């Protein structure tokens, strides 16, 4: 039932409302004539309705959620309550810097921590999410070439396995995208790269470990080839969890990186966001970083603006980015400390390799069987799809009945019928064993009677949904005329 269907004219949560007054001074021609479609319900109805809706979700707090490339690790509760402390949650963005010295100290420390973790020279916390971090990164590369008068660089190289945001971002920055293939061992095809680079190359966008779940072994060579051609290297930090404290993008030769704090630094995904996508840069891109960034002057902190940074690519949101998310990430970083960060990569990698080996033993085919898993790995169900007509989609939906969120399906696109599985470091062995066992059972079900999979899920609030109808007969809002009992 929708909240609107519980609405009764005249009912209200009056305890939440200020006294009724007539607004003065608004010309009649500019006044609203009919009330918007908001429900008239009691406070308890609201609490009950949304509590019940919450119970229709899988979440990290309730289920193993091994979505590849998304790093669904435990989100410590303390990070949330600290970000909501009144002095932090209640501060207006245009309040003077003097009223936010505690906040600014945290933001400054977070910049310093992220610099060290990534091996970059400077960090800006401004971007609101990974894709905005990517945008900032590519905009900086463009600003750098423009500042050098190097305006013939019109192409960005992107591996075919890249996240969809990479090519979309390159286009937003006015670049043409040139795709290069991935080899059957998961590494980039170096010969194809050599053939692709030239005076038209602005840069390359890479993820390492790559989106196929393996470490790009020839990264130094790739960096040399791109740099020799005058291009810059962009690092998509989606997979930073795999290498935290072990190896740093700055040392690999990257010029600019974005981090997804909602992945590696455990801020919540919130059913779709908010995230935070700070960027780190090498020396030559320092002047172009997005603002605001925090500077320390003596024992005082302040936001730097356009005035301080004349070559900046500028502001990407009205105020200072997703401060509340950055605070959660900062608290997490302080809880982990440097030793804790190294352990993140260690146990994320241990969990992924364990799952890969055990699933192989259970009869599943790996996309890159000769490679080590990083923090994630790819399994392909192409044999099951061919022999039993049991697709990755069917396995995914059946897993839900066993109480596990499905891994990422059908990404990367170049591996047929694939699962990209990322357990993260916060899952216990028993949970991994449960998942492996469920996969083995589903495989047996597929061999016995594939219809058992085709009809899944059976135990959730909805059976499989009609996506085609959703797109053809668009129903994007409830209409009052549908009312009602």
């Amino acid at each position, binding site marked *: 039932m929708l*909240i609107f269907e519980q609405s009764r004219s005249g009912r209200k949560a009056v305890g939440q409302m200020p006294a009724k007054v007539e607004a003065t001074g608004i010309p009649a021609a500019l006044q609203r004539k009919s009330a918007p479609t908001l429900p008239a319900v009691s406070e308890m109805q609201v609490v009950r309705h949304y509590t019940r809706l919450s119970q229709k*979700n899988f979440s990290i707090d309730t289920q193993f959620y091994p979505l590849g490339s998304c790093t669904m690790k435990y989100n410590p509760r303390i990070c949330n309550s600290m970000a909501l402390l009144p002095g932090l949650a209640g501060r207006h*963005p245009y309040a003077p810097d003097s009223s936010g010295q505690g906040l600014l100290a945290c933001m400054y420390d977070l910049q310093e921590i992220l610099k060290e973790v990534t091996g970059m020279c400077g960090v800006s916390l401004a971007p609101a*999410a990974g894709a905005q971090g990517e*945008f900032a990164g590519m905009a900086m590369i463009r600003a750098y070439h423009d500042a050098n008068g190097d305006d013939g660089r019109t192409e960005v190289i992107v591996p075919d396995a890249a996240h969809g945001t990479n090519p979309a971002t390159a286009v937003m920055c*006015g670049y043409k995208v040139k795709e290069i293939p991935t080899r059957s061992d998961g590494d980039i095809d170096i010969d194809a790269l050599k053939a692709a680079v030239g005076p038209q190359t602005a840069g390359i966008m890479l993820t390492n470990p790559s989106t196929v779940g393996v470490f790009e072994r020839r990264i130094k060579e790739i960096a040399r080839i791109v740099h020799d051609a005058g291009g810059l290297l962009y690092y998509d930090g989606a997979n930073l969890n795999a290498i935290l404290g072990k190896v740093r993008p700055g040392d690999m030769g990257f010029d600019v990186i974005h981090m997804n704090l909602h992945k590696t630094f455990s801020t919540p995904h919130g059913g779709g966001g908010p995230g935070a996508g700070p960027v780190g840069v090498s020396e030559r891109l320092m002047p172009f970083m997005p603002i605001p960034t925090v500077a320390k002057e003596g024992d005082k902190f302040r936001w730097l603006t356009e005035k301080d940074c004349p070559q900046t690519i500028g*502001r990407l949101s009205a105020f200072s980015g997703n401060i509340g998310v950055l605070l959660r990430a900062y608290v997490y970083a302080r809880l982990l400390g440097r030793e804790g960060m190294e352990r993140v990569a260690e146990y994320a990698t241990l969990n992924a390799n364990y799952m890969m080996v055990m699933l192989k033993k259970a009869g599943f085919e790996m996309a890159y069987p000769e490679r080590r898993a990083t923090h994630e790995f790819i399994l392909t169900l192409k044999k099951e799809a061919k022999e039993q007509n049991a697709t990755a989609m069917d396995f995914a*939906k059946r897993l839900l009945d066993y109480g596990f969120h499905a891994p990422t399906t059908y990404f990367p696109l170049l591996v047929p019928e694939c699962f990209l599985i990322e357990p993260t470091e916060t899952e216990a062995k028993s949970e991994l064993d449960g998942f492996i066992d469920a996969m083995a059972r589903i495989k047996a079900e597929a061999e016995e009677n594939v219809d058992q999979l085709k009809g899944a899920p059976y135990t959730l609030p909805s059976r499989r949904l*009609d996506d085609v109808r959703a797109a053809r007969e668009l129903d994007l809002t409830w209409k009052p005329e549908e009312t009602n009992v």
Partner: protein
Amino acid sequence: MPFIPHTEQDEKEMLAAIGVNSIEDLFDEIPAELRIDGLSDAVPAGLNEMGVARLMGECAAGDATGLNFIGAGAYEHHIPQAVWDITTRGEFYSAYTPYQAEASQGTLQVVYEYQTMMASLNALDVSNASLYDGASALAEAVLMAVRAHRKSKSKRILMPSTVHPAYRTVVKNIVRNQGLTIEELPYCAESGKTLVAELAKYEGEDITALVIPQPNFFGVLEDVNALTDWAANNNAISIAVVNPMALALLTPPGEWGEAGVDIACGEGQSLGVPLSSGGPYYGFMCCKQKHVRQLPGRIIGRTVDLDGKPGFALTLQAREQHIRRSKATSNICTNQGLMVTASTIYMSLMGAEGLARVASQSVNNTQALTEKLCALDGVEQAFSGAGFHDRVLRLTKPAAGVLEALTDQGIYGGYAMAEQYPELADCISVCATETKTEADLNAYASALAAVLADVEAA
């Protein structure tokens, strides 16, 4: 080890299953010369929860202790306790983007309800599931207008200078490399409204879109009907930038002029989202049905499941980056989902009447504050146009110094206009929402009186 559940026994068994001797062996594909030997002490040693709570408590204690009269695009409204209690339930807080619809019906239904509420507030047909914030939403709206208006080749956008200055900057920064031209429209120095008559010089020219703020950055109400009709008559897409709280009282963009605007966007923060020094907030975007395939961001649709039961799913995904890649409507992936959850709960609790009450109280408190402050010598209203809950006041003393002195007295007195509007050098923008009492308004007035007298003496 914080948050890592492995026992020694687990670790031993797992390593044996993999067939390696140590976790270190699992990193053997990384070239040795790239490996670092641990992080430096630039990353502090770990703290336990008690230690972190103490550290953060100390940081927060000194911050934002004053009485806030700043608006300028972010508004302090009361947020009912239930909003964030429910929003931060783990099932909402720690869920991912609802790719597996059957396991995400909670989040999906919340967003469907949100889309209904937001579309209705704007009197437009459809809403997306959110963008980052108001400023980046305007940038996306401008890009959407360029896509939606296939006949217009100019990519010329008319942007009133009464649009929030940070929004104008963000739009420029985001569309910079896409060949657009953004031309600013002047405002009337007396009323604070965009000069509709100035549009005459663009008549007959190829204009892709006209941006229309309501209320504008000065808090002044624009002639939105005339502006919307001008866009329609000149074959330009109209883009409203609105405060959704204000729409509880003001004509919604879908009803402006003869036919309503094409696209409306803005900042959703006033609907249940804490100020939090500027984020996370969320941008909203609504449009007419005919433009729905050009909307950026996620959209949720209602459909049916295998048993014919209603349910919800992401839809029109063919617009998005994970399908269309370089041809997507936007690169956006992660949005501001949790903020939308909070707003949906906020709007449900308040209802149409509650929103109207909050908005009315804010309008009247701002008017009352304006009257109290303008009763002082050396303070006057900068603009004559009818206003909402921001007001620009002209001081006879340098604004920056006055604001600083007010801060010393525990009052955040407003936003200094000088940097963005040199012609308003001695002006500040003030706001008093429903959270302010008569006593608060008086406290501001007497503090300002003292400060002005002090400046006088000095």
